[in-house]
Structures are given as C-alpha cells and as structure tokens.
C-alpha cells in the first residue's frame, strides 16, 4: 500500500504517463494536435532534444538530408550563414559552416526509455513483450471494440479490470497460466505498487519501469489514456483507465515470469548491475544537436524569407470596385487558399474572406434518426446548444459485404456462394469504373441538402439532454456580429454573401475524419454554414445588428454551401429562399464557382503523378473526382500536406502572391480593431488548431515510424477506433506516410497585419496562447499595416526584419507553373491580368 513518504506515488506517475503518451482520439474524432504537446512548456528545440533523448523519437531530419537540401538550393547559403552567426557569432562562422556542411558525427543513439525493462532480456533471457503483448492487446481491443466483433465482451460495463476479473472468476478458462497471478487478480487487494514490488523491488525504479512498460506500446496506452479523459469519444462508451491497463499488464508479466521460472525469481532491482539513468535527468548538449538546430532554422527561414519578401512587394493595390459582385466566406483552411485566388481572378469584383470554418456558431448537431450528438465546433469548446435535423430524405444504403452473416458458419456458406460472386463483380466494377458506394464517405451526406434544421430557439424551456434547442435572436446576433467584426466586413455588403464550409470525401480511408474541417471537430462544415446563413438572414437579427452599427442592406442575402475539398465540388443550401434578383446573380456566380473549381482541381493535380497536368481543367477535374471514390487510391487528396503559413489580415496583404496552397488565411481588418480585442479571439485557436495541424505534420514527417502511422497499406482496423499493422501490432497514432510525403517540415509562420506592439500585447495576454509563440513552437511576424515593414517575434520582442531575398519572381500565368512543377513552388508575385 502507498505510504505517505514513499518516493513512488502511483497517482502522479499515472498522471505523468497520461501526459506524455500520444493523445490521439479514436479515429472518428481524429483531430490534429501537436504530437509532442508534452514538451510544449520548453523551448522548441529544448523540447525536441528531450523527446529525442528520452523517448528516442527522431525529431529533425538527418544531417545528410539537410545537406542534400542545401545542395539542391532548398536551403540558401546566405540564410544558413545568417543563422550560424545568430547562434554562434560572426567569429565562428567559418568553423561552424564547415561543421554543418562537412563534419562527420558518430551515430550513437540510445534512448533512455526501455532501458530498465530491457534487463528482463539481458539478465533473465525472457522476452516479456513477446509473451504479454498479444494477449494484452487482444483483450483490450475486444473490451473497447465498437462493433467489429459479433460476440461482444460479455461484461461490458464494469471497467476494464473489474470486467476481466468477473470474467476470470466465472470461467473454466483463465487469462493466466499460473496460479499466483490469478490469485492476485481475484483477491483484488494488490495495488500497482504492490505488484511492482514483486516485479521490480526497488521503489526508486518504479516510475521508470512503468514508463518503459507503457511506452513499449505507446499506441494502446495512449488510446486508453485518451478514452479515459474523454469517454464520449466512443459512441459505445467504455469505462477504462490507464490504472487498469497497467495493473493487468503487471499481472500478465508476473504470470509470464512465474510460468518460466516458477515462483522463485528475484525482482529486477536485485539483478541489474547498475541503475539506469533517470528518464528526465538533465540532458547533455551535443554539438550535433546544435548543428541540426541551425540547419532546421536555415531550412525554415529560406522559405519564410521569400514569403516575407513577397509580402513587401509593392503591387498595385487592387481597385476597389464600385459594387461587389459577391462576397464569399471560406474556412481559414490552407486548402481554400487557391480556390479563393481563382474566384478573385475570374471575377475581379468579388471579394473573399477567411474565418474558422464553424463560422462562430458552436453547437451539437443531431441528424434525423441519429442516436448520438455530433459536436460541430472546435474541439476545446463545449457548446450549450443543439441543432436538430428533420425531413431528411437521404437513404443510407447498407453494404451486404459488411454484414455479420458473412462471418457465421452456415449463413456464411450461403453468402459465399451467392454474394461471393457479386463481390467479384463489384470489385471489377470499382477497379475499372470507380463510383460511389455505401462504403464511401461523402461530405455531402453529412446533412441532407433538403432537410430542415431547427435553428431558432422556440422557448428557453426547449431542452434536450440539457442543451438548449436552437439559438435566441440575441444569441444569433452575437454570433453573426462576431464573425463580421473579426473579418472586418462591416459595410459594402454585396447582394449575395456565400458562407462556404468544407468537408471531404474518400473511401477505404480510416483517417477520413482528419480530412474534414478541424474547426468543426473533424466533420464537414455544412451545417454550420447553413446555420450561420440562416442567422444572418434573420430579420430580427438584422435589426439587432443595426442597433449595434452593422447595417446589412435588405437586399443582401447569405447563402450557405459546402466545398468538398477532395472532389472540388460545391453544393449550396436553401437556394429557394433567394430573392428573384439574387437567384439570377447566383446562377451567374455558379458558373464562376464551377470554373474556379475546375482550375483548383487542376492546380491540385500537379501533386498527383497519375494525372497528366497538361490536360484541360475539366478533364482533370473528372479524374480528381474519380480518385475520391476509388478503392485503391490511398491519396484521395493531400489534406494539409503543404501547410506552412498563417496570414491574419486583409486579403490585400497577400492577394498578389502565389502561395501554393500553403497558407491558412484569416481575414482581419486592423482598422476596425485598434486595440486588438477581436485579434485576441482570432489568436486563441491559431496555436491549437493551425499550430496543431502544422506540428502533427511536422513530427509525422520527421519520424513517420514512431510519431506517424507508417505506410497505411498494411493497416488493419482495430475495434473501429484505431489502426495497427497486422493483427498483433500496437496502435499507430499519427499520420500515415501517404499524407506527409510531400510535406516540407517547417514550423508555422503566423503573419499578422497590425502594429507590432498591438500584436505583442494580444499574444502575451493569455499564458496558454503565449506559450506557443514564446517557446517558438509557432513563429510569428507582424507586418506594419501602413509601411509594410516586417517585425519578427523573438525572445519576447518584435524586432525589425529585412528579408535577404531581393527579387521575387513575377509570373503572368499560374497555369504554366502548375503544369511544370510537382514539387513545392517558390513564392511568386502575380501580374494581374
């Protein structure tokens, strides 16, 4: 039992474990986050060093990869020299330049994790992992299973350990091979500490042992910790704790040892020759880590520098048209970057905005017949509202090949001899003519285009499971005002304002949720777009807004829509509510949208080797659509693979630049927000959402094996909540290699158009937000709204930055760039046609 003065505190260690383990949710709620979030309280490179030293993650590229990038001029010499001087001083430039480019560094690598527990193999010649893990994973997976198995875990609701115990007690078959472990479990009196005493013996080693043990299968442990934190992330909720997992594993270990050595074996502490180094003991600086740090900085700034230089290029400010043809709001998502460019190019009189894709309306959504609620807002927010759907006419087909009959004995016999042949036909059909099926995930099916949503609250008593059904007028007005103010659209409203959410479509893709809108908790943003439009069109809401100084003309109508980023299609909602005049304009605009989508598809296709980019846009668009329904296409789209920037400011800041779909773009007008009140609202999610996406790509790219999911081709779906390789493997959190292979691992550079002092005061206002920038997990720069001078945040201050790039190339035609290149493009200035 725990004594108060013991060195080992079970509770603290379990808590720490939960903090360091991968924090990925079950697949259906896949949300990007900083993979190394546990190190975020440290400076970026310090955190990386620790993660590398303690857990053995590869956190940066290999030195040979940086040198290769340098050789192909992806890292510029002047920038490299600048970074060396910043870090090592001018006098050491030459010596360090030599070190970076030529020194050999011996490959020594021995992570601290696993050292203690490896003694079982060293001293006892027993491979505990090999014996324990298959049984452990199997039991755990069956217990947590969400619907694959036909015969479910018989005792579902007691909690992992209690359920296992109950099963063991009432069974002729045992989980164990030996008696002691069985007795220990049935007696239910031993704590983790007691079991560790049997296994390890020395209290000072307990914590290290548990870290070793849980990090030998960090995927499973991380999943358990994540479900423990957020039980609702499983629809069929399961009680599970890290505590139970550890306890069960310790028992299995005792069992394995008893089975091999009988009851007489000495605990680990008695046989190890020397104590392993404490996991979190201070880290010795190595020259190599400094070298890699300089390389990484040089790599990042080679890109940033040209972007910043591009932002300073004096392009002719676009003439403000007398009347806007239409305005369109998109998500800040980097994938919308190019579509907005095409729209603006095709129709010079239109105007586009970016704002987080939940459009400021946070709620749970219940589709008709849905047995559960879906959260449609950023993950950290817990909404108090519910939007329900009615009149859904969409049919959800069933897929006979997924039915459980195929796995029964006699039923299976019938099925194989009938459905089996149909399967052959289906397979041939999908291979030669891919088309959507019930197995496909389609963003448009998230909500029926023609269904009704209950958006306005009828009475405050109208509640469902404690949630208020719909919003009151006041609440609606607040939300509409919020979006309009942060984006700076307070006057010059066009007659038609599109609110376009985004989602994606794919098939055979367990990571489908990662492709949808991050601001909508990994779901398509269609409901949000529709809800926002309803609110903004509401007459009472308009009255309230007018009272607050926002006068939206009566002729202006908001129209919701959804952009499918995989298929490059847009569907609009509630078009029938448009006035006759607006209907006509809409028809016209629709043509522009279509053309823009074709071109966007073409631009995306340059990354896909299977598509010849020189074909016409519409032909390519057809091929792109086909990709999304092809069973054999592991890259339906590339998602955020190119993200690197986040621009917060007016569209004019970046309008003349070709940024190659690499930038998140949040519209913001400094003129309407002198002291940065709204900027704070914008900055709050930038770290967790954009930074999270960026760093997940970053680390999955740096170590696709340990921090990413490896190639997705051999993945096997485990219990519907995770993927593993084969049947006995550990869960694989992180991104599969197919998602990150074109990704350049650079940290996010946030660029804010505002006075540096305002930006500084805003970001330093809240500790959680400030941490991202202060510890350099995300870079931030300010661009002076009037002078276009640049200021880069470093060590708590913004200091002036003068780009080394002197010329940014001008191009006339994006299409030629698109057709010629497959790799990441440099920044170009666009000559307005």
């Amino acid at each position, binding site marked *: 039992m725990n004594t108060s003065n013991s060195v080992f505190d079970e509770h603290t260690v379990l808590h720490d474990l939960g903090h360091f383990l991968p924090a990925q949710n079950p697949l259906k709620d896949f949300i990007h986050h900083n993979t190394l979030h546990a190190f975020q309280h440290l400076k970026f490179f310090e955190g990386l060093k620790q993660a590398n030293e303690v857990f053995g993650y590869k956190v940066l590229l290999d030195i040979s990869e940086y040198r290769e990038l340098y050789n192909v001029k992806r890292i510029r010499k002047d920038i490299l020299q600048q970074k060396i001087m910043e870090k090592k001083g001018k006098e050491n430039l030459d010596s360090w330049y030599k070190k970076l480019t030529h020194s050999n560094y011996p*490959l020594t690598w021995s992570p601290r994790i696993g050292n203690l527990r490896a003694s079982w193999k060293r001293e006892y010649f027993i491979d505990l992992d090999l014996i324990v893990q298959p049984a452990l994973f199997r039991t755990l*997976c*069956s217990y947590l299973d*969400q619907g694959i198995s*036909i015969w479910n875990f018989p005792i579902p609701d007691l909690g992992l350990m209690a359920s296992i115990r109950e099963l063991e007690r009432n069974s002729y078959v045992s989980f164990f091979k030996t008696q002691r472990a069985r007795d220990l479990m049935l007696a239910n009196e031993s704590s983790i500490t007691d079991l560790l005493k049997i296994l390890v013996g020395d209290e000072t080693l307990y914590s290290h042992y548990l870290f070793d043990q849980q990090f030998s299968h960090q995927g499973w442990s991380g999943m358990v910790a994540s479900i423990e934190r957020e039980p609702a992330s499983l629809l069929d909720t399961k009680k599970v704790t890290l505590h139970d997992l550890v306890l069960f594993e310790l028992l299995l270990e005792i069992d394995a040892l008893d089975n091999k050595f009988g009851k007489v074996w000495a605990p680990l502490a008695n046989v190890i020759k020397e104590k392993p180094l404490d996991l979190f003991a201070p880290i010795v600086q190595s020259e190599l880590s400094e070298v890699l740090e300089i390389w990484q900085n040089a790599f990042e700034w080679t890109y940033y520098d040209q972007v910043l230089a591009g932002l300073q290029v004096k392009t002719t400010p676009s003439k403000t048209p007398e009347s806007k043809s239409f305005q369109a709001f998109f998500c800040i998502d980097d994938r919308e970057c190019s579509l907005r460019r095409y729209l603006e190019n095709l129709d010079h009189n239109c105007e586009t905005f970016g704002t987080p894709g939940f459009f400021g309306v946070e709620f749970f959504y219940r589709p008709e017949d849905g047995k559960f609620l879906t959260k449609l807002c950023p993950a950290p927010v817990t909404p108090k509202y519910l939007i329900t759907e009615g009149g859904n006419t969409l049919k959800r087909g069933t897929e006979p090949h997924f039915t459980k009959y*195929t*796995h029964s004995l006699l039923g299976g016999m019938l099925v194989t001899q009938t459905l089996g042949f149909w399967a052959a036909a289906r397979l041939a059909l999908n291979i030669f003519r891919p088309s959507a099926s019930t197995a496909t995930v389609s963003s448009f099916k998230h909500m029926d285009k023609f269904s009704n949503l209950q958006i306005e609250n009828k009475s405050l008593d109208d509640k469902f499971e404690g949630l208020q059904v719909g919003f009151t007028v006041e609440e609606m007005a607040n939300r509409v005002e919020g979006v309009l103010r942060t984006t700076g659209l307070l006057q010059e409203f066009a007659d038609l304002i599109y609110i376009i959410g985004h989602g994606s479509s794919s098939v055979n*893709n367990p990571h489908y949720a990662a492709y949808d809108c991050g601001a909508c908790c990994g779901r398509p943003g269609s409901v949000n777009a529709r809800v926002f439009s309803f609110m903004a069109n509401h007459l009472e809401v308009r009255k309230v807004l007018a009272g607050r100084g926002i006068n939206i003309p009566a002729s202006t109508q908001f129209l919701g829509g959804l952009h499918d980023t995989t298929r490059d299609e847009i569907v609009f909602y509630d078009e029938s509510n448009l006035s006759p005049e607006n209907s006509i304009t809409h028809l016209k605009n629709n043509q522009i949208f279509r053309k823009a989508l074709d071109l966007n598809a073409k631009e995306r296709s340059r990354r896909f080797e299977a598509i010849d980019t020189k074909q016409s846009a519409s032909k390519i668009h057809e091929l792109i659509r086909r990709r999304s329904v092809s069973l054999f296409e592991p890259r339906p789209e590339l998602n955020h693979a190119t993200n690197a920037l986040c621009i917060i400011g007016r569209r004019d800041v970046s309008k003349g630049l070709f940024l190659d779909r690499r930038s998140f773009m949040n519209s913001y007008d400094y003129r309407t927000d002198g002291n940065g009140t709204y900027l704070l609202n914008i900055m709050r999610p930038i770290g967790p959402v954009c930074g999270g996406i960026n760093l997940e790509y970053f680390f999955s790219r740096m170590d696709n094996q340990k921090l990413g999911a490896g190639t997705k081709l051999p993945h*096997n779906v485990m219990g519907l909540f995770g993927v593993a390789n084969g049947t006995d*493997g550990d869960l694989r959190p992180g991104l599969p290699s197919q998602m990150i292979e074109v990704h350049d691992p650079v940290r996010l550079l946030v660029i804010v158009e505002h006075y540096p002092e305002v930006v500084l005061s805003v970001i330093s206002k809240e500790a959680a937000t400030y941490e991202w920038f202060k510890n350099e997990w995300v870079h931030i720069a300010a661009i002076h709204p009037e002078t276009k001078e640049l200021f880069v945040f470093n060590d708590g201050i913004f200091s002036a930055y003068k780009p080394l790039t002197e010329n940014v190339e001008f191009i006339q035609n994006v299409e030629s760039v698109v057709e010629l290149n497959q790799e990441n493009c440099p920044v170009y200035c666009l000559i307005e046609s």
Partner: protein
Amino acid sequence: MTTLIHTLIFIPLIGFLVSLLIPQKQERLLSGVAFITIGIHLFSFLSFLVIWILNGHQTLDVKDVCLYRSKEYVFLIDFYFDKVTAAYILVGAFLTFLVSIYSRAYLHREVGFKRFFNTILFFYLGYNIAIFAGNFETLFIGWEMLGISSFLLIAFYKDRYLPVKNAIKVFSVYRIGDVGLLLAMWASHHLWHENITFLEMHNPVFVSDHLQNHSFIGVFISLMILVTAAAKSAQLPFSSWLPRAMEGPTPSSAIFYGSLSVHLGVFLLLRTHPFWENQTSVKIIIILLGLTTSIVTTLIARVQSTVKSQIAYSSVAQIGLIFIEIAFGFETLALIHFAGNAFLRTYQLLVSPSVVSYLIREQFFKFTPRQLTIEDTFPKRIEYSVYLLSLKEFNLDAFMNRILWKPLKDTGKMLDFLTIKSLIWILVPAYLGGLFVLFYEDSFPPLLIGYLPTMFSFIALIFVLKAFSERNSVRMAWLMVIMNHFWIALAISFNEHFDYTEILLYLSGIVVMGTLGLFTLRRLKTQEECVDLNQYHGHSFEHPKLALMFLICSLGLTGFPITPTFIGEDLIFSHIHKHQFLLAFFVSSSFIIDGLAVIRIYTRVFLGPHNKPYHEIPFRSS
C-alpha cells in the same frame, strides 16, 4: 491443346523475368508488365477454356521434360488439365489480374514497389505450376514457389519486427506442409514403385489394385496429404497462422490469405480425391477435421475485434466446410464454394479500411446498447469460458509454439556444449571414418552397416538443430547446414548402392550455394561490425544486393527448385526403404529444420529493424 498449356506456363515466367530487369523507379512499366502479363494470361486461358469445352472438355495430361531418369526413378514435369484446374486458374487469373491493377495505384511511391510486383508475378508463376501440375513432383515445384513468395510478402515490411517474425512463423507451418508432401511422395513411390501422375491416380482399378495389400501405406500417404492440405489451408491445429500472415500491403493479404494461397489445401484434396475416396477412415478424419475447424474457427471469428483477423477466421471456417464437401464427394459444390469464398474474402479485405466509416455510421443511426447473441443464452460459466477460450484462439498459437518452436529451442540449447572446435575435431574425422567405412563396406559386419544410415542421419539432425539454435556465429550456423546435407548423403549412401551421380546431383547445389553464401557473408562482414544471430540486424537496408544474393543462396541450400539439389532431395527420399520410418523421420525432420535454420539466418542478418539512427526506426511492437 498441349502447346497451349505450355504457353500458359510460359507467359507468367516471361513476365516475371522481364519484371526483374526493370528498375524500381519505373513504376508504370513495372505495374504495366504485371498487368499485361496477367491480362494476356487471363485472355489466353479463356480462349483455351473455350476450345477445351468445345472439344469435349476431356481431362488432359501432358508429359513434359524429364529432368532426371534412373532405373527406377523418373523426375518428370507433367501438366494436367481438368475442371478443377479450370476453376482454380479462372479464379486465380481473374483475382490476380484485378489485384495487379488495384496495386499499381495503391502501392504508388511505396519503397518496395518493384519487390511487390516481382513477388506477385513469381507467386503467379508458382500458382500456375502448382495448379497445372500433373504429378507430385511438378506440384512440389509450384508449392515451394508459393511458400517462398508468401514468406516474401509477409515480410514485405522487412524493417519492422512483427512482419519478419510472423513471416518465419508462417514459413515454418508451410515447411511442415512441404515435408508432408515429400513424405507422401516417398511413400507413394514405394506404393507404385514408380512416379505416377495424377491421371493414373484417377484410374480406380489401378488405385484399388495397389491399395489392396498396402492399406497402411495408403492411409499414410493420405494422412500426409491431409497434413499438407491442413497446413496450407490453415485448418486445425495450424489455423492461427492465417491472421498473422496479414502483415503485407492489403492487396497482397487479400489475394494470398483471403483467396488463392489459403485454398491450395483444398486444391490438393480435390486433386488427390480419387486416391483416398475409398479409404473410409481417411474420409472420416477429413470430415472430423473440417467440422472441428469450422466450429472452432467460427467461434474465434465471432470474438475477433480486428477486421482482418475476423475475415481470416471466417474464411478458414468456410474452408473447413469445403473439406467436408470434398470428403463427401461433392466436387462441383466444393469448387463453387471455393470460388465464392475466394471472391468474397478478397473483396472484404480490400474494402476493410472502409469499415470504420461504414460501421460508425451504422452505429450512429442504429445503435442499441448491447446486442444479445446466441451465446447469451448459455449458462454464464459456459458462456464466459467459451468466450475466453475463443479470445485466446483456443490456445492454437501457443500450441504451435509448444510443439514446434519450443522443442527445437530446447534441444538446441542442450547442444550448447558443442563448440565449433569440438565439432570440427570430432565430426570431421568421424565423417572421414564414415567415408572409409563406405568404401570398405564389405569388411564390416552387415549388422553395423544396417544401423549406420539411421545413426548418420541422426548426426545430420544434430547438426541442423545446432545450426538452428546457434546464437553467435553466422558462418558456423551456415556451415552446419551444409554439413547436415553431407551427413545425410553419407547416411543414404549406406542404404543402397546407387549411382554416385545422384549424390553429386544432390550435393552440387549445396556446395555451390553454400560456398556462395559463405562468400556473401564474408563480404558483409568486411563492411559491417555486427553480424550475428542474436538479434535482427536489418542489413538489407544498406546492402540490398548482398541480401538478394544471400536469399538466393538460402533458397538453394534449402532445396528450392533452382539447383539440382531439388531433384536430389526427392531422390534421396526414394532411396529410403519403406520400413525405415526412423530414417525417414530423421531425414524429413532435417529438411524441415534445415529450411527453418537457413531462413532464420537470412532474416536475422538481413531483415528486421535496422538500428542506425540516421533514419526512422519503427517500434518493436508496431
């Protein structure tokens, strides 16, 4: 007609050879070759089928080249065609064709793109040889090719620990099947006193004549066939290898373990059906085996919580039923059942990643908190016990470990006292002594001579056991495998006086490949510090060419049909007398463990995680 059969074998052969020559970067070309090869093959086969049916669909038998001939032994390549062949080739060609198209996009940018298509084509060639085979010898060639391509595809992700470990696991089960086949060939040689073809086996009078006085040997042959079939088709007690084989890219799992490879046991039973159909005891065993398998694996399938293992066990259960159907003589039903099962499981595996979104959607709209199943009506204690037993896969995996790996390891450990020195000092003179005795055989008492083969084959077995359990010196282990073959050769030489060219035939491959292997290891040693058998080294990461070379040597050393040793092995068996069960046991055990020892050396040295930190290293548990 007959030339057409040849063409059908040659098309995949040429495709395979061409695919070897194309560089890895040429993805389109590589997949194109696979696609065209299999496409042409499918098309030619369909034309062939039409002609065959129009010509009265008679069973065809084509005697092809004779690879070796002595007084009483003929190694003949023979092809055979009937409706079983037709069904298997049709399903195989169709599925492989689809999967080859599927994979060209699916495997895009994968590191092993070339390796994948090479292996698929190699598999396809082996599949065709096995299915078209007209006698055991030809079948055995195809069989071996399938085994090795399975191994290569399971270990496709060779830089991870689990695929490599599971590849060896599956390989060892296959090896048991191989030896079952070898023993069946050995016994049938004694039964017919010649190498017979399947066509002859289909002659009921001929079969019953021979079986009349040799019912025991008849049952033995049938049982060996059954062991082989059960191993390949994952029947009890071998079933647990199938889910563990799902380590490669999904399409390869789909085609191998969902459909084609796993149904080869069924094929073997169908092919040999006329031989055992009148042996009631065998039929009962097959029915019982099929029945037990289908019940047990259905239970296991019901509790699986991962998609691929669920499909694997369901498929095994259906194959159990197919076994029963064959035993009852419902050949056509069995063929339809096979085709349906193959198609269904392939498709299910290929769409298995979709299951997440599909079932979650189902769950979202149709969730009922806990679905009661039939098992809930059982008494609690029974229910829980069966559940737990099914969860533990009826301890099948543990059972295989206990009967296969553990005895090997334990015996190996007992031999730890043997060092290189002691072996060389004792056994080289002993071998020379053995040779001496052989040359002056007449001057030794015949009683002693009678015991010598068994004794020498036992020594041979010790060598290979030692090779298998060796932890340090790679060279030592490799040498012991070579020595093993020499001792076997010596042992058999006492047994019967036959032409020494046969021994030469047997040892030629061993010597050449063995030396080449030693040379390869030497090259590796000059470049790498750490080459031992204590852990996986993954040296193929930096030395792919040496790895390939060593793989070829390993195959040669295990009697793979690339050197004359392959025929030699079969010949050696033919010289074991039918009452010499102990000798047959030692020699066949040697062959099993031989293969395992050699593959173990190859995997430990060249496969597994490559622990140099300049690249990403996977976790062991992944």
